[in-house]
């Protein structure tokens, strides 16, 4: 474990690359470093590709074998902004609740398709939750198994139609994905038969 010596600190803003003892390579821009706990925080571009988002990686340098400074910076880093603590606390709470509600749904024995549909809807409409085996979207639309378009019930309106569209699209995507998999499988099969 190559812990940085007393003299080795990381300048905020410099680019660094690390190799963990578990064989994972991580790199990014230094955000913070705490010598005493040997914690190094890097940030890099978000894996999802969205421009405003970042991936933040907290690395325990005690478990890192290599540290390479790719790009050192010495200029003063930008000042830190004030943080809205309540907002953060709210976010934490709501995320936790979301996760738990999903877990309950899963425990309730919802089918895989239902779970997948839930995930899909959740990507678009955050306000969806499980209720037994039904998906409740925006407290207005209820989707019951088998979670098809016609299973969407609720107050007639823009919300309902929107949800229906999402469901429809979801299943189309699933279908297309399946068909692609199938075709791929067939392709490989063909290949194998051909080759054999």
């Amino acid at each position, binding site marked *: 474990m190559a812990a940085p010596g007393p003299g080795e600190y990381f300048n*905020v803003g410099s680019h660094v690359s690390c190799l963990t003892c578990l064989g994972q390579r991580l790199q990014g821009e230094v955000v*913070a470093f705490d010598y005493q*706990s040997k914690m190094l*925080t890097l940030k890099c571009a978000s894996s999802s590709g969205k421009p405003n988002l970042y*991936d933040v990686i907290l690395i325990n340098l005690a478990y890192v074998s290599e540290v390479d400074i790719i790009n050192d910076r010495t200029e003063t880093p930008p000042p830190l902004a004030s*943080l809205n603590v309540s*907002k953060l606390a709210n976010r*934490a709470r709501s995320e936790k609740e979301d996760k738990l509600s999903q*877990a309950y749904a*899963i425990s309730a024995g919802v089918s895989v398709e239902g779970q997948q549909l839930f995930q899909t809807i959740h990507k678009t409409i955050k306000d969806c939750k499980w209720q037994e085996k039904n998906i409740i979207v925006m407290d207005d639309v209820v989707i019951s198994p088998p979670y098809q378009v016609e299973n969407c019930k609720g107050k007639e309106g823009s919300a309902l139609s929107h949800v229906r569209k999402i469901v429809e699209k979801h299943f189309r995507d699933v279908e297309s994905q399946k068909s692609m998999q199938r075709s791929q499988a067939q392709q490989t099969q063909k290949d194998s038969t051909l080759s054999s």
Partner: protein
Amino acid sequence: MSMKAGGNRSKPGGGSAAGAPAPGAGGSGGGRQNLGRGRHSGKGPAAVIFNGVYANMRMVHVLTSVVGTKCELKVKDGAVYEGVFKTYGPECDLVLDAAHCKSPEPSIGPRKEDIVESIIFKASDVVVVTFKDVDLSFAKKVSSDTDNFTDAAVSSRINGEHKEKDLEPWDGGETHNSDSLESLDTDVSNGWDPNDMFKYNEEKYGVMSTYDSSLSTYTVPLERDNSEEFLKREARASQLAEEIEASATYKARVALENDERSEEEKYTAVVRGEREPHTLGSRENKYIPPGQRNREAMSWGPGRQNSPRLAPGSAGPPTPRPGPHDYSPNSGADQRVVNGGSSHWPSPCPPPSSRPPSRYQSGPSSLPPRAATPTRPPSRPPSRPSRPPSHSSHPSYPSSSSSFSHHGPTSPASTLPKRMSSEGPPRMSPKSQRTPRAHRVPPCRTTGIPPGVDLISHNAPGEVPVTTPSRSSSSGGTWSSVVSGAHRPRSPRQNSMGGASPSSSSLPPPQTGSAPVETVVTPTSASSPTAACPAPNMVASSTGDAKECRVQETRQTSPTANKENIKPLESTPSIPRPVCKGPPSMAPDHRKQIDNLKKFSVDFRLQSSSNPDPAFDQMMTKPPRDPADKPKDLPLDKSSSVAREGNEEGVVVIAAGTAAGAPAPSSANTNTSKPGSPAALSPSPSAPDLKRSGLDVASQGVQTTATFSGAKHEEKEEKKEAVQDQVRKSTLNPNANEFKPRFNTQPKPANTPTPPRPQGQPSPSIVVQQPPAVYSQTVCFPQMYPLTPVSPGVQKSIIWKSPAMYQVQMPHMTVSQSKPYRP
């Protein structure tokens, strides 16, 4: 070292940023030992020493920014936990909420059994934590969140020494390059012409206007078909339009709307030069304080015959009856009447001095147009006094009282306006001063009736302005009609005619009856006093009467009384008496009403007080029954039965309840509350029955009665008086414990608070609970509540411990709770 971050930890606070980690970390290492030193630094609250990672600004900032995001934490043995990042400790221990161990194969999601509410990971166990798709500015304080512009907010942004800013005066610059800044002020074009606007938009922006000037989308055009029917209707329509547009109401409204005068002109500017020049009337419009009114009236013109005679401070010598408006200023050129009475009969109204002249127009002058707001002095100065004999020729009062001949100079002399008996007005003046003008008018108007009468009676003596009778009658008529409720709002037509004809037509018989009578009476008397000598005496006597009457009238003043001119009426000795009759004749009507109301209230009271009795009797019968019942049910039954009986008195119920319920407590009191019933009640409840329930019953009784009486309040409000009577009679001790408000002490079925259980089977091992409250209490941010080692009671978080190698890891971990980490 600038570890002293002051209040705001997020701020870098000077040099702590660059290269801070090391010194910060180094410092923080020693910081713990230096805590004592830090505390003794003597800087006070500004110097807060943070431990461990908390001292590292940047670290704190970034770790705080990612709170609440999903993260994956890899521990040193390779397992990955996915959860919501909750908080971190000074030693950089990390807390994950709703964490589950991620299984290698792709699955839908964790089941709830797999989810651990909270796990604490020691820094030394953590290899990598990945926060994906984080918005680092999520929690950035935005101006919309806070009030950035308050002093507090602005100062909070200053990190460091707060010194006074040097203020400099703003300099807008001498010249403006663009004229646009100034041109708006001077621009009078009222904007663009619509067609220009449309053209411009079309050319510049390509925006086509859909404006249709015929407004066809809003209205259907009228088709001319030139048929007879159409032409007829058209003619009728234009006739109506003409009528409307010619009406004074419409004109007044439109005038208001189109009034182009500035606000200042309208309301506050001094009116100059609009008055007709009046010779003697220089003081006619001036406001004279009450204390000076009589004096002034008195002091006017020794030449005036009447002034000396107007003994009791009669301020208004014969004032033209315009009455209320009239006052001392006396312009009458040919009149030697002090009160500017010119050719008007002195008005029995309160001395003109009591009223600001400007308010009302004198009798002779035509009434101000109705449209003029009463609160504004009419633009036309009430030059009543200044209009000499024109009165006689006054056209605006086509009064029917042709009987009034010219009002000669002598008449005013002989006739002192009742107003002279000035007490009335001065007495009324405070009131009149207090109230808007309209108020003043009524008193005058009421006296106007007598004046009217006087006028009528005085047709002989003087040239009673034609308007007078009409005025008086009108005023009288209006008054009595008001009293009798037949008052009509005056139409503009009325105004022009001094409201004479319409109101006079509405004059109720009594009034007319009285008038002629008085007419009969007065001429005789009027003819007699030719000299002023008797007048004063009469006046004096009439003063008293007038006073009286006026006082009465004041009471009866009706706000609807118009302020139109009431002709100054000459008051003769005889006048006061009829005058007094006049108002009293009206007063009775009004008084009758008052009496009726009083009677009604009395009756009402009586009835209500009698009401409880029957109910009470019923109550009496009830209690004997009650003891037989179970004591516990007793109050309830009784109250319910009482309710059925319709007994509204809470007091009675209480009496019953308490009497039944509590033999001991305050029974004596309750017994006395109702003469008969407690006596009946007390013996009835058998002591043994009640004793054991005793307090219980009492409490229940009170309880139910409380609720019961509460319910009853809505029902019978009108019986409140009876209740109050009874309450008054009652000797219940209101401070007794029984009467203290009791909240529901009934044992409810015990509600064991069960936390909301999620559906499905609860996990046998770890209960995954969802008490968000717990989490909100444990504030996760270092600067506020440094994380203390977990106390299991607070939240069910476990400390991750590295499982023994080569063992099944998951189950152990879930089961072991609050076990310390054993590496």
